[in-house]
């Protein structure tokens, strides 16, 4: 008895020591690996995002003490500020343009490219190139190309092509669609590549089956291709609608929202209020509102999916 008790007790002690070490190894070390990245994300993103909620309820120039005003910023935003309404409208126009034009272009190009074997990689790569260019290059290149005295538009105008004597970026009626056109120039190729990847996963037997039934190209597209890439398509529509509320770079670089606010979107308003008018509190309220629109888009998507829509 006595002889056996000691080894047992030592066994327990050893086991406990091992348990402590393995506890450290199993539970603590994994957290040490994620801690640095988590810490800087809390510092850079989450902390400031929460602070924005507070700032949005203050009247603050960005320096000195912030004055608590409750929901006054939001009241001003929704009921008094006409620039908010027009900016929101411009985001909706942007949304409508980007839900349709680039998606259609991407679908057409991808379905034309999918059956192609010779040169497929070349086309995929070449059409993707505009997407990797910096916004400043895209902006200034196209500003020159569509300048009425120079570039493509000037060249067409010199040859008497009607409708080309216009400063597309200088008129309130044309500025927003023109910037959307420029942004689409670099965006649609990216969509095309995504759709193409989806189409290449469709089993070829399906095409052969509908072709045996005598389907033409359009019926093939409608009955096989479109259902086959539906997950990609729906996801891209969701991403596009989120991103339509956040678009900033090209508009800011090309017009800074002008002329007379005709190309102002919500992100431009945030930037102007924060860094030009020094209305930090109001800018924060705009930022929160923008995020709520994005949240609303995501919620609609989730609710529809819960309701059994196959999206």
């Amino acid at each position, binding site marked *: 008895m006595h002889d056996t008790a000691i080894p047992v007790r030592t066994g327990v002690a050893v086991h406990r020591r091992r348990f402590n070490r393995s506890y450290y*190894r199993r539970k603590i070390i994994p957290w040490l690996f*994620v801690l640095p990245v988590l810490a800087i994300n809390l510092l850079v993103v989450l902390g400031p995002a929460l602070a924005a909620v507070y700032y949005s309820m203050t009247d603050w120039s960005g320096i000195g003490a912030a004055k608590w005003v409750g929901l006054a910023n939001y009241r001003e935003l929704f009921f008094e500020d006409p620039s908010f309404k027009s900016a929101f409208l411009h985001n909706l126009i942007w949304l409508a343009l980007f839900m349709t034009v680039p998606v259609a272009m991407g679908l057409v190009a991808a379905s034309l490219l999918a059956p192609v074997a010779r040169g497929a990689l070349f086309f995929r790569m070449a059409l993707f190139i505009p997407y990797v260019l910096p916004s400043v290059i895209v902006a200034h*290149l196209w500003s020159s190309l569509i300048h009425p005295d120079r570039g493509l538009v000037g060249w067409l105008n010199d040859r008497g092509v009607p409708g080309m004597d216009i400063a597309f970026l200088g008129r309130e009626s044309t500025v927003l669609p023109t910037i959307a056109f420029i942004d689409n120039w670099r965006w649609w190729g990216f969509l095309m590549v995504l759709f193409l990847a989806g189409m290449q996963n469709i089993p070829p037997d399906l095409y052969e089956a509908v072709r045996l039934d005598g389907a033409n190209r359009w019926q093939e597209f409608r009955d096989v291709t479109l259902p086959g890439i539906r997950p990609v398509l729906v996801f891209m529509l969701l991403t596009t609608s989120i991103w339509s509320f956040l678009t900033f770079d090209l508009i800011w670089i090309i017009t800074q929202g002008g002329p007379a606010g005709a190309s102002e979107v919500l992100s431009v308003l945030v930037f102007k209020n924060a860094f030009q008018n020094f209305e930090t509190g109001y800018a924060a309220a705009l930022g929160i509102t923008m995020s709520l629109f994005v949240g609303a888009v995501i919620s609609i998507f989730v609710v529809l999916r819960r309701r059994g829509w196959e999206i």
Partner: protein
Amino acid sequence: MNRTARRGREINLAPNYIVLGALLIFSLGPLVIMAFNSLKSRTEIGDNPLGLPRSFEWSNYSQAWDVGNFATTMANSGFLVACTVLGVLLLGGMAAYSLAKLDLVGAGALMLLLLVISSLPIHLFLVPLFVLWRELGLLNSFFGLIIIYIALNAPLAIFLLRSYMIQLPRDFEDAARVDGAGEWQIFARIVVPLSWPGFLTVGLVTALAVWNEFLLATVFLQDEDKFTVVTSYQNFATRFSRDWSLTSAAAVMMIVPILAIFLTFQRRFIEGMTQGGMKG
């Protein structure tokens, strides 16, 4: 390939090539015009804004390099890209390793948190972040901007690297653990070397994002000697907006490094960016 070829014989592909060719001209035509114009003299560009250059004014490039201060801005952008990529690969790789290979308590919640963080719009936290960075004395500092870039690029890197590491067989790690290797050694000596294609993809996508980044570089670096190629080009192109050959030459110099790297690694780029699109 065989089945594509069979389908190819069944359908006439000529219309496909015609439409794709037109789209190709739409996509690359503007860039070709820009390359042409970068070599034209100011007088030539007036009456020949689109065609091939008649004479080659290579001096446009040296002039744009000097006036655009490219020696400084290229070094600045290169430094930001290098430090951000290293930081993202190291910190993101560590987190991905923990999520993929260690039984992290709360892994699901952490993934969700990272997903939420990565989908918060930048304009939501930009203003408070600017104020915080001013209080911390991190404005106008490369270090301050690199921290922001690492934070914003890390979540996507973690998702991509995690999905890569999960596919690695556990045998090597288990063998190393039996031999008494610590988790850090397993990470650095076994998992990183085995998942280098994932690291390469993430590094390329991050490098491109930082090289092209506009908004944060504009807000957080305000001294002219700290400008990146992008923010400096914005000033340059606004100042010389009437001098199309000079701005074209500067633009060509900016995108040649991008295109060279993109064309070399195009499959990795497209894989990384489309997966980014699917996850982001």
